């Protein structure tokens, strides 16, 4: 009999009592998810440590069944690389999963809410596929080397191959790790160049009746323009101020402008539409550069009303 998948209880934030229960559900799910991932990390570490010991100090396993297995099985390049790359990648991947605050019921809630608005909420975690793709090539070549079908001689061609393959091996591990850290995301694709990224936010500790148990969703738009683009800064500032968008600096080192919005599950639809409409305005006004004819004037002087087109007046003409 097919095992029935456990249904996650629906979240409800419509009143204080239900909000409290929903937060409890989220926190329990998050706790379960964290325990699971930490367990996976520990298993990975254990496998890697045992493997290292088998290859470095085989005498430690004299009285175990491992002694019965031919030592050459462990010490070939393919096995070594598979173990090293997989454990390293999965270690980073699971750390990222632990760091991300999301739970199945919260994801279902957002999926449902965005579907109501006609948008498709997606979990785009592609690092695993990239890792498999890049590593399958590495592993194939390593198998050829282990079987002796590729042999190295003291020639320039061999040296070049070893160098190129070493670079490829390094990249086949670094690229998926980099992807897992920066590009695995929750996203709603609005149009070809426009999307919204999601970041969930809640306290991990046990919910208190009287304390603040804010469950938040940070929404971040795609890159708008470089920060040093004065026209971009003017349009961004005008739209963000008019729409009461959050102007918290997520990172000082990010050289690009983004729109930010903060919502809770209760006002998700409203806040989501607010940031999407900000993007539509961005496309209209940055594209037409209608607000930017004075962008060459230093920014500190641009605040004076006479120096640029009145934004509100401009908008009112089009409403």
């Amino acid at each position, binding site marked *: 009999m097919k095992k029935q998948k456990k249904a996650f209880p629906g979240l409800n934030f419509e009143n204080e009592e239900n909000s409290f229960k929903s937060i409890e559900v989220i926190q329990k799910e998050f706790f379960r998810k964290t325990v699971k991932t930490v367990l996976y990390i520990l298993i990975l570490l254990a496998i890697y440590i045992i493997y290292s010991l088998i290859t470095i100090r085989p005498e430690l396993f004299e009285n175990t069944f491992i002694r019965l297995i031919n030592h050459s099985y462990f010490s070939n390049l393919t096995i070594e690389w598979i173990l090293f790359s997989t454990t390293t990648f999965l270690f980073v991947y699971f750390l990222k999963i632990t760091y991300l605050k999301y739970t199945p019921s919260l994801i279902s809630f957002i999926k449902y809410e965005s579907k109501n608005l006609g948008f498709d909420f997606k979990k785009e975690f592609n690092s695993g596929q990239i890792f498999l793709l890049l590593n399958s090539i590495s592993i194939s070549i390593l198998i050829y080397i282990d079987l002796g079908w590729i042999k190295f001689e003291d020639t320039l061609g061999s040296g070049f191959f070893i160098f190129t393959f070493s670079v490829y091996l390094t990249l086949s591990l670094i690229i998926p790790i980099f992807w897992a850290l920066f590009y695995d995301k929750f996203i709603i694709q609005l149009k070809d160049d426009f999307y919204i990224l999601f970041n969930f936010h809640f306290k991990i500790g046990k919910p208190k009746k009287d304390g603040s148990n804010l469950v938040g969703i940070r929404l971040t738009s795609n890159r708008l323009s470089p920060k040093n683009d004065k026209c971009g800064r003017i349009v961004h500032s005008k739209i963000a101020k008019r729409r009461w968008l959050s102007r918290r600096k997520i990172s000082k080192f990010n050289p690009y402008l983004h729109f930010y919005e*903060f919502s809770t599950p209760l006002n998700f639809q409203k806040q989501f539409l607010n940031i999407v409409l900000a993007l539509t305005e961005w496309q209209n006004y940055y594209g037409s550069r209608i607000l930017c004819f004075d962008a060459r004037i230093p920014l500190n002087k641009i605040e004076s009303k006479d120096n640029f087109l009145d934004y509100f007046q401009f908008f009112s003409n089009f409403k």
Partner: protein
Amino acid sequence: MSISFEEFIQKYDIDNFTKILELKGQEKVKFYNEFIEIIKSISRIFDKLTNIASIRGGQVLMSLAKLEKSETVINKTDIKRSLNIDRLEKLLHAFDYLEENNYINIEKKTSKFHVIKLNEKDNPDFTLFREIIQKFWISPEEEEARVNKWRDQK
């Protein structure tokens, strides 16, 4: 552009009842546009206040705007008192939400003493909001004082 109700009144001498308000041509268009801006700003304030996803978030904003008229340093307890709330814990969710949304700035002087300010710099509509609240809104603390005063009258 942040629109100020006070500036608008002064600019056209609206509160001067000895002078006739006469607007012609471009001046009338400008007056109309500015008036519409005030209404639009008020509409946005309504929209945002009703969508603050915290039961007491809107009330905290109003209380803060009101207190800024009389106090230079406002802390969480001042707001609690102004709203007649028995425990500060009931407002923590609202403070978190407003801070996350950058509607208020919280400066943590000590672990317990937090100075709160309305973030008018990033939210220009707050200028008009503050003016309206300071002029017309009566806080629960003031309401209670009025009621008690009336009860004490013989």
